[in-house]
């Protein structure tokens, strides 16, 4: 589904990603872990097509398409969804209006008519129930005055509505209390299928207790330095990153 080969990216001439290799297949859950500043959010932004970053080498392929040829919205239309670490406020634009616009723009790109209001409402109700979101939420300005937890839950609500093929969840667990974490994880699991994939970026095992990863990768200083199964996450939880850093350190 997603194949990344030797990806290098920089911002303002500072290289952040230094040769990333990653392969995500349909049905899989990948976890990416790593200390602050190691490049996790940069990687997700580059996959989503944020133009501030300059891709200097390597390639990204998504469902047979070269991502470098797609604008961010085209990547979204192709099925890539990014749950932002820091969701953005848009004053005066309600959650409903935002979602309606997003869904209908994706449909337009596929040559479909706008979704009938009735269907949209039905879908919203369903997903709101799944994520235990209150109705009043829909008419609030998107992310404006939302608590940290509400912002993250709103991201997952959007994911549920947009039904992406690949969802990248960038620290979606931070800011969530234990109940919210369970609800969000439960939502992600319910939406999971053999046809879609999830990349979870997190610092903590507690999310991975709910969403079981097939693969765990450690991102360190712009490179994936170690990959393993779910046990790697447990090991990291216990020992931190230092032992990996030591493994990486040049001999001498």
């Amino acid at each position, binding site marked *: 589904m997603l194949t990344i080969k030797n990806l290098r990216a920089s911002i303002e001439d500072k290289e952040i990603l230094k040769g990333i290799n990653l392969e995500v297949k349909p049905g899989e859950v990948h976890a990416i872990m790593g200390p602050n500043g190691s490049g996790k959010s940069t990687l997700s932004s580059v996959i989503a097509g944020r133009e501030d970053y300059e891709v200097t080498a390597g390639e990204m392929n998504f469902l047979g398409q070269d991502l470098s040829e797609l604008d961010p919205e085209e990547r*979204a239309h192709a099925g890539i969804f990014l749950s*932002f670490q820091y969701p*953005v*406020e848009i004053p005066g634009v309600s959650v409903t209006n935002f979602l309606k616009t997003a869904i209908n*723009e994706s449909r337009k790109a596929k040559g479909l008519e706008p979704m009938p209001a009735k269907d949209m409402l039905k879908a919203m109700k369903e997903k709101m129930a799944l994520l235990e979101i209150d109705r009043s939420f829909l008419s609030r300005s998107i992310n404006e005055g939302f608590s940290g937890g509400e912002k993250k839950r709103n991201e997952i609500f959007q994911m549920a509505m947009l039904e992406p093929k690949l969802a990248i969840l960038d620290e979606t667990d931070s800011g969530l209390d234990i109940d919210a974490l369970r609800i969000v994880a439960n939502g992600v699991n319910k939406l999971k299928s053999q046809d879609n994939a999830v990349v979870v970026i997190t610092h903590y095992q507690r999310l991975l207790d709910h969403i079981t990863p097939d693969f765990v990768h450690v991102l360190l200083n712009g490179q994936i330095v170690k990959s393993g199964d779910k046990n790697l996450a447990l090991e990291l939880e216990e020992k931190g990153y230092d032992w990996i850093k030591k493994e990486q350190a040049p001999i001498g």
Partner: protein
Amino acid sequence: MAEMAEEDKVLNEVTQSEYKYGFYTNIESDRVPIGLNEDTIRRISAKKNEPEWLLTWRLEAYKRWQEMEEPDWANVDYPKPDFQAITYYAAPKQKKKLESLDDLDPEMKETFDKLGISLDEQKRLAGVAVDVVMDSVSVATTFKKKLGELGIIFCSISEAVQEHPELVKKYLGKVVPPSDNFYAALNSAVFTDGSFCYIPKGVRCPMELSTYFRINEAGTGQFERTLVIAEESSYVSYLEGCTAPMRDENQLHAAVVELIAMDDAEIKYSTVQNWYPGNKEGKGGVYNFVTKRGLCHTRSKISWTQVETGSAVTWKYPSCILKGDHSVGEFYSVAVTNNYQQADTGTKMIHIGKNTKSTIISKGICAGHSNGSYRGLVKMGKKAENARNFSQCDSLLMGNSCGSHTFPYIEIDNKTAKVEHEATTSKIGEDQIFYCNQRGIPTEEAIALIVNGYCKEVLNQLPMEFAVEAQKLLAVSLEGSVG
């Protein structure tokens, strides 16, 4: 910097949005010879078969105007119009008075179709009466009968001069006297048409009264005069919208609008202004110098809402004189400038009575090389005990070549009066646009979404169908502008 190059690219794309409604309709017209002198005014007055007092009033205004100088305090820059090169009267030639909309000149009808405001459609839009002003003479009036049953008068000002001279004589120039300013004086001397609206005591006008203005004849100055009178305890919502054909020369527009709200009356006056703004290089476009003012008696309310996207140069300050105790004035404005447009707009809230209240919400949006200014005066008079004002003036910038300015003037002569002023300047963030993009919303649509959100408080004040139109207009005016 990669970011800058991208910004420029998007900016260029946005500013590619040509004036959508640019076209010219060839309708025969009946004109008064070019230029301005006493004789022009006599001819206009004679053509309109006006009573002697009105001619005298016009000539007096003309005398005043000749003694005045064109104002230059506004933050706009433009070549001074040549007042001798303007045609002051051009009536579209209609074969006869219209019985119904079906009798409308087919070419004119086509024009309306192009604008997407076909009268057929309008007619079907229950609850909207349309009085169309094309060039300087009203050509169609609808729903008149229904309004007539309630005693509401809604007609062209020329018709009002003929049919209701006592009302016109009583109120014309009482809120905006001819000597008020240069353009008000000019308008008083040469106005050729506009609308007249009278709501009798205790009547709530059951529909939005709507006028679409258009400028059509090349080189024709447009001098509308609008007079709205709401008698005691009455209510009216009045809509004014306009769009003009594309052309290469500057057109002067100097309208005067006077509103009078008697005790306990309420007037809502909404405008969508979309005159030709000139091309991308700043050539052509309408000069829009408007004087709009309302007078509030006791416990009455006047609410101005405007969405300004057109014109090359705009100079406009819809104001309220809060004379009666407990009266309320409101001003809600969105002003968009793009390319080389210049707008200096705002309001004046003059608090005279006790416990008077005013609210000002102004949202400026500047893109391209444009220049937008908010200029507002809040005056609390000696007797304005406990008067209150709240002003919120926001500006949104797109790109780095535009300019936005705020000039709030506050004069307080009463210690119990309170004035609150808030102002913000922001840019549409790259992160907001990327967030939208990531959800599948392309940049143009993202900007429209963000801008409409930013203007929500003002758009919410507009009647439903007008709000939808205004939203579309904002999107069209800003296609491709990113900051």
